[in-house]
C-alpha cells in the first residue's frame, strides 16, 4: 500500500480543520463512500491530530505532526506521528464510566476506537495508525479493540 498523501503540519490546532478537509477531499474524490468517510474517518483523524498536537507535542509550535494517508482496495489508512515522548494507550481510562463522565477530557482515543475498524500505536506511543474499511458497515460501525 503506497502513500497517497503526506502532510507535515505545524503544531497549531487551528490548522486541523483545513488539513482534515484536504485529506477528506482527496479520499472522497477517490472512494465514493462519503458517509462512512465523512463521519467515522473525519472524526477519527481530527481526534488523532488533536491528540498529537496537544498531548504529543505539548502544544509546542516548534514541533510538527506528520500525516500519511493511503488508500487501496477499499481500505483507508492514516498514520499520525508527533515528536513527543509517547504514551501508553492502555492507561487511558474509559470516559464512559460513571466516575469519568463529567471529566472535560479523555474522549479522543475512545472515539477513535469506536469509529475506526483498527487503531494501533507504535511501541513508543507517538504514532497512531487508523484503519477504515469502507465496506465494513454503516456509519459509526467501528469497533477497534482497546
Amino acid at each position, binding site marked *: 500500500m503506497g502513500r497517497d498523501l503526506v502532510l507535515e503540519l505545524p503544531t497549531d490546532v487551528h*490548522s486541523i480543520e483545513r488539513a482534515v478537509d484536504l485529506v477528506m477531499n482527496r479520499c472522497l474524490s477517490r472512494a465514493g463512500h462519503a458517509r462512512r468517510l465523512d463521519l467515522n474517518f473525519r472524526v477519527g483523524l481530527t481526534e488523532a491530530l488533536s491528540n498529537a498536537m496537544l498531548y504529543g507535542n505539548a502544544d509546542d509550535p516548534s514541533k510538527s505532526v506528520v500525516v500519511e494517508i493511503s488508500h487501496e482496495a477499499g481500505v483507508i489508512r492514516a498514520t499520525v506521528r508527533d515528536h513527543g515522548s509517547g504514551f501508553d494507550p492502555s492507561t487511558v481510562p474509559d470516559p464512559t464510566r460513571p466516575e469519568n*463522565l463529567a471529566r472535560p*477530557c479523555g474522549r479522543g482515543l475512545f*472515539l477513535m476506537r469506536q469509529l475506526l475498524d483498527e487503531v494501533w500505536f507504535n511501541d513508543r506511543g507517538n504514532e497512531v495508525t487508523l484503519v477504515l474499511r469502507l465496506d465494513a458497515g454503516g456509519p459509526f460501525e467501528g469497533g477497534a479493540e482497546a
Partner: protein
Amino acid sequence: MSFQVSKSGEISLIEVEGQLIVGNRQELKQQVLEQLEGGDRKFVIDFANTGYIDSSGLGVLVSLSKKIREQGGELRLSSLNEDLRTLFELTKLDTLFRITDDKVEALEGF
C-alpha cells in the same frame, strides 16, 4: 464556527454555526463564561447548523455545564442532528445533558 447570542426572557440562547472543534472551542467557552459572570443562569446551546463536534468540543460543553450548575443554573442542548446524537450516545453524554429536539422545546420547558 460562529455563533449568535440572543435572550428569551431570562434564558440565553446561543446558536452555533459550523463545527465545534479543538480550534475554536475556547470562543464558545469564553462567551458563555462571560454571560455566567454577568448573572445569566439559564442557557440553551442550539446546534441546528452544526456539522459535528469533536472530543474537545464535547469537553467544553461538559466543563460549561459543570460551571453553570455550580452557580445554580442549567445548560440545555438542542437540535442535534443524527450524527451528533450518536456521538453523545457513544460517549454517554446524553445522560449528562438535557437534550431537546429543537430550541423551541428547550426554551418552553425551562
